[in-house]
């Protein structure tokens, strides 16, 4: 248990570091040196040192937004079996709980955005509410798939210990679809290219960034840290899926897990560098691809696993 809590703290602390890997990879493709790998820490420290500015037209909902979304993000990490170790909490059906915990975080971000009554933030909120609906469908398809393989609705049943290897043995090739499907969900949920552009300064094209325009100082710091944690959560799942090996010596297990994480973050960076962002009305098609992949994976396993 203590070990799990330490891992959980480590995950939150290292999440900003991994996010900077993406920046480095993009800089490399752009022929630049890029900002240092610790840039996100500097940014967070800067933000937490500042004061917050609140518009007079906002209410308590606006102040609640960042706190709740951050709380949701770190609570979700408590259910994550980091590097195959047991998570802090785990119970049957926790996957559904996790999904809606993230939904709760999103709801409050959207509510806070709507609270500002800014037309930009309203637009961002509408987009933020729309795309994850499709993601949710894909996520449930993946759950159905996992449930068919393991008969359990529990994150640790898929990702802790040697369960992931067992998953590959059971699922086989269709699990590759799931990896890609997960990666697409990761890009969508974390506002990455080609769905959203985290680097733009143009309000009209933003999805996630525009919703947090009015937040400042520590509030914005919480939102940033929360989004690093969220990205870490998804990356950790993909990392376990692509490198499912379980070693009795935990040092090697960690090393493999971190290598997996870095592969995922580099893959995000490469994706962002080699493709342009999709037009807003094409994004649903892209996100639906993840659903279709998960759906096919499930159909295939229907035949083989009775």
């Amino acid at each position, binding site marked *: 248990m203590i070990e799990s809590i330490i891992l959980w703290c480590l995950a939150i602390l290292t999440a900003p570091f991994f996010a900077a890997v993406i920046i480095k990879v993009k800089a490399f493709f752009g022929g630049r040196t890029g900002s240092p790998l610790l840039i996100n820490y500097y940014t967070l420290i800067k933000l937490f040192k500042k004061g917050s500015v609140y518009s007079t037209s906002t209410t308590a909902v606006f102040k609640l937004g960042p706190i709740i979304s951050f709380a949701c993000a770190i609570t979700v990490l408590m259910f994550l079996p980091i590097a195959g170790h047991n998570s802090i909490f785990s119970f049957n059906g926790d996957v559904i709980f996790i999904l809606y915990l993230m939904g709760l975080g999103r709801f409050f971000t959207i509510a806070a955005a709507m609270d500002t009554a800014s037309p930009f933030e309203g637009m961002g909120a509408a987009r933020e509410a729309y795309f994850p609906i499709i993601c949710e469908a894909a996520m449930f398809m993946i759950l159905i798939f996992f449930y068919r393989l393991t008969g359990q609705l529990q994150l640790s049943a898929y990702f802790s210990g040697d369960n992931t290897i067992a998953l590959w043995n059971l699922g086989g090739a269709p699990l590759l679809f799931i990896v890609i499907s997960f990666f697409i969900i990761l890009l969508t949920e974390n506002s990455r290219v080609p769905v959203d552009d985290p680097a733009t300064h143009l309000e009209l094209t933003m999805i996630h960034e525009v919703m947090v325009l009015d937040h400042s100082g520590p509030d914005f710091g919480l939102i940033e840290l929360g989004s690093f944690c969220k990205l870490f959560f998804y990356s950790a799942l993909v990392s376990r899926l692509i490198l499912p090996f379980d070693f009795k010596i935990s040092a090697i297990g960690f090393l493999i897990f971190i290598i997996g994480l870095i592969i995922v973050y580099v893959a995000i960076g490469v994706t962002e560098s080699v493709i*342009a962002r999709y037009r807003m009305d094409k994004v649903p098609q892209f996100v639906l691809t993840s659903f279709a992949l998960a759906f096919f994976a499930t159909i295939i396993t229907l035949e083989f696993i009775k």
Partner: protein
Amino acid sequence: MTNAFLEISNGEKLSREQIPHLSFNDFQENALDIIKNGGKVVQYFGYQDDLSMKFLAVLRTDKLFVAGCDAPDSYPSFSKICEPFHMFEREIAEQFGIRPEGHPWLKMVRYHPSYREDMPDVFGNDYNKDIPGNYDYYQVDGDEIHEVAVGPVHAGVIEPGHFRFNCIGERVLHLEIQLGYQHRGVENLFLNAEAKRLPILAENIAGDTTIGHSLCMAQAVESLTSTTPDKGAQIIRTIALELERLANHIGDLGALSGDVAFLPPANYFGRIRGDFLNLSLLLCGNRFGKGLVRPGGVRFSLADDIRKTLDERIKELKPQVEHVLDLLFSASTVRARFEDCGIVSNYDAQQLGLVGPAGRASGIPYDVRRSFPTEHYGQIDIPENKKPSGDVYARARVRYDEVLQSLNIIQSLIDTPVETHCVDDINYDLAFFSFVVTVNEAWRGEVSHAILTDKDGKILRYKVKDPSFHNWNGLAMSLRDTGISDFPLNNKSFNLSYCGFDL
């Protein structure tokens, strides 16, 4: 076709007595006749001459035409019949309080009090108030309609302008653009400025079009003082104008790439743009070409060692430019964003009178370098460069072509030694009671300056027209029925000047 308008050539000095002075009705009839047959407005402005108000119009078909008339206090709007007059009539109404009756959208252009203090303000504004405006915006009604107001203060380090979108969901039904926040009264500054400050003023009308505007000013002054720059100076000016075009087009293509989150070309072009600005630096000691063009010639000669360095650097940059262009235009995801985005049809472009790359992207071949060549352009073969589709892709593609052409033009010009005599003693004794209009193809399109002098050879009216004056409405048109999230992309594909418009 016989027309009462007088045919003139680009930069031709005319005594004002030679300009046909028509009755207002004849003026209107003839002007509309030219425009209805496919002509366009180059200049149309009012001026005060011995307390009487007059209009003067310079129109173009494949030739330039000029005529003037006495201005009435109000008149039936030309725009009702011929759209290209739209902005010009609003400008005249604002500057001199002359109301075009029945104008379809009579609104302030730049927000300043009328030059004639005796006339009531056409728009009913009190300019002593902090916010004088009666801002009327075109509105759309309905259940799901929402209005988005952007600016005048923007997130990036750009100039101020207000954009009002009427949307249904993500789709833009109408965009209205209100500018004028940068109004400095440039045209009036020219009237009272010391002669030697004229080039400085012209250079600073729009910083990114320094060469374009200073060329127009220099040619106009040269015409009125009957001086001719030597051949070397003409070549250097041509090189400078092409360098300006290169730096800006490359910067635009990089920014377009950045707007679709395709970073590598955005980064590379950002750097290469700087390299081309540095070539201007090499030429005259200023990255934007300030201080180079002066009436009578140029202030910096192109010595052989500089010419060689220029040649070497262009040889080095050319493959890089070609490589990055290829990277940008061969990426399918970029094509998917550019194609069919923000289409301005040829018909709309004609009605709005779009000029420059934006016009050529909508199938209007007009290019001053071909139609009314100045400087060394008469000896250079410029291709037509028009594209049929009118979308962001076409506007990017025009730039693609022009970048490669400009590189070739510069290379061919610096092939042989260029000799010129640098000007230091400039003649500013303008011919009295004269008129001249100059037109040049700057990187955004047709820049035009017109000068009228009075009986003492003093400037009576200095009129500046930046291509953005035509093209802002093109941007508004391109957004019709386009996703609001594609606005930045379209905006960048036009990349218009705020200060050039606001003057």
